[in-house]
């Protein structure tokens, strides 16, 4: 009796598993297929991309879209701007966020609680609400249409400081106290002892900052209108919205979208383990 019940239950479980495989494969296809046909679409002719959008392999391969991107479209300039901004913003965020996070978690000073409270309040301001205010201040300071205006406002983020503060609080104080008693200064203790221990949090902050600044769009819409300061996001947006006479040239738009996604995709696959750390052994630590 109990044997048959067991067998029955096992068969039910097997059927359930098979069903969820079918479902998951179908869903995964829906999630991945758009990216695949976008890549293949970028190698199609304009006519084929419009008429045969579903095929995974172009009937006639053409690199025309990529050629145009590198000749008549200033894609390299956009990429250069994106790279410059991303490198500076990421470096700035990792350094200044950890500096401030360390001070807020470890250093005793009057007003620390107030500074932290203000920080939390600042995090409550949604980004889209800041568009007009940021434009106004950049105009006021004469930073509109400059790299400084595009970079400095997003170079420190309250959320990053928050992450670092929380992490530093998880590190035992004893190590740094020993260093300080040995006569190391505050900055040296922070730089040579505490920061290396914060590697996991720094990596997280690096991923977030890189992805955030590479994909940033709205801030670059309001901080410049000079075409020479286009980043990949604003540049590709002008292609997609058809501003450069690119109305129905899907291969061109798709090629641009594919190229601009490569750095973030590479980052994602390098740090995949970390990003998906929930998957295995999320319980360690």
């Amino acid at each position, binding site marked *: 009796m109990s044997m048959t019940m067991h067998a029955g239950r096992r068969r039910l479980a097997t059927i359930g598993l098979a069903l969820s495989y079918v479902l*998951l494969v179908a869903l995964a296809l829906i999630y991945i297929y758009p990216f695949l046909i976008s890549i293949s679409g970028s190698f199609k002719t304009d006519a084929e991309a419009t008429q045969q959008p579903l095929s995974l392999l172009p009937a006639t391969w053409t690199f025309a879209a990529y050629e145009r991107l590198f000749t008549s479209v200033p894609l390299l300039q956009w990429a250069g701007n994106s790279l410059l901004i991303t490198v500076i913003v990421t470096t700035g965020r990792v350094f200044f966020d950890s500096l401030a996070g360390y001070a807020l978690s470890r250093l005793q000073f009057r007003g620390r609680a107030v500074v932290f409270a203000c920080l939390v309040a600042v995090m409550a301001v949604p980004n*889209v609400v800041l568009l007009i205010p940021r434009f106004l*201040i950049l105009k006021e300071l004469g930073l509109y249409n400059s790299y400084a205006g595009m970079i400095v406002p997003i170079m420190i983020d309250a*959320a990053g400081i928050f992450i670092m503060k929380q992490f530093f609080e998880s590190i035992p104080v004893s190590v740094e106290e020993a260093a300080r008693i040995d006569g190391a200064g*505050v*900055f040296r203790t922070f730089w040579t002892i505490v920061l290396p221990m914060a590697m996991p949090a720094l990596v997280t902050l690096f991923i977030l900052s890189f992805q*955030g600044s590479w994909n940033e769009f709205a801030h670059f819409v309001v901080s410049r209108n000079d075409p020479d300061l286009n980043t990949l996001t604003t540049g590709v947006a002008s292609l997609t919205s058809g501003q450069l006479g690119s109305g129905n040239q899907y291969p061109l738009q798709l090629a641009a979208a*594919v190229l601009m996604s490569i750095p973030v995709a590479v980052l994602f696959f390098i740090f995949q383990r970390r990003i*998906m750390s929930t998957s295995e052994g999320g319980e360690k*630590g």
Partner: protein
Amino acid sequence: MSRGIRGNEARYGWAFTAPAILIIGVFLVLPILLALWVSFSDWNGLGSPLGNSEFVGGVNYAKVLVDSGLAQRDFGTSIRNNLYYVLLVVPLQTALALFLAVQVNRRMLRGRGFFRTAFYFPSVTSSIAITTIFIFLFTSSGAVNQVLGWLGVNGPNWFADPRGVLHLLLGGLGVDGSGAAAAGGPLGLSWWDWFAGPSVAMCVLIILAIFTTSGTFMLLFLAALQNVGAEIEEAAAVDGAGPFRTFFSVTLPMLKPTLFTVLTLGLIGTWQVFDQIYLTGRGAPAKTLLTPAFLAYDTSFSDLKWGQGAAISFILFGIIVALTLFQRWVLRDRDAGRAGRRREVRAVARLHRDAESVRAAGTAVPEAAASEGRER
């Protein structure tokens, strides 16, 4: 606490936080004050708003909220559009994320890593790239309509179709916009207009939002599911509960804190749609894609009505703050158990993983972190 070691800490404390205070002060606090002034002034965009404008009181707010006219109508339309967007995106993305998390959490499932990657990848790409792809997918002869064609369905011209979905349904039942429905409703829109439902074009953006955020929220649910642990579910199974019963009576209640987090992040994020609107035709077709976030930008930068645009920004801010307070109120009596700091950090980090959703979710980060902590 010897004075020698602690003595210069204050100096270092301020020195370390100075860059952050300076930048946040100059590029966040100051601008908000400046914009607040502009929203109460008649500044026309020429010169500096300080000195070139007069205080006009609540005129800009009144134009948007009270005075009947185009400004009010546009604002009402944007609120209606966004309302339907929120109503559909938030529950659907939450349900899908939870479903995906439960599926890829199965221990017997092979290729879990592959499935997780597949579902999470859309969250990583930029809104510009993914919107470009969606415009390509949803053209009149695009991939989606071809697939619908196989099923014998004649797909609409998605991004060019301003017809409201509810209007289409009601039209099928023979109901039209005459009679009581034609009477004026709030914000300059007739009740018939309020009940248009999302336009066909808006449906694409709704699908886009679900597509890009479900992966992020799946990871949140996955983390929570792993904390629940398989043992409890197995125990429930041994006690004779079926899989559905186990899920709804055992697993789901334990996921409640994460569920709240996801709902809040979604609720806040969905009121901030901007990039997608900018790309798909600045509110077209027939303003059915207009959102308050985009309307604020457009009113200021295109129509040069800076005061009015700033006013819309602050009204939107008000809506988002109200939603955050509502969430706090819902969560008010929860016991804040002290969990290990490290776990808390990891919970925060997990939350922040997707920069897009971080920015979208600025408001909820501290609460979310706290509620993530509570669930342990």
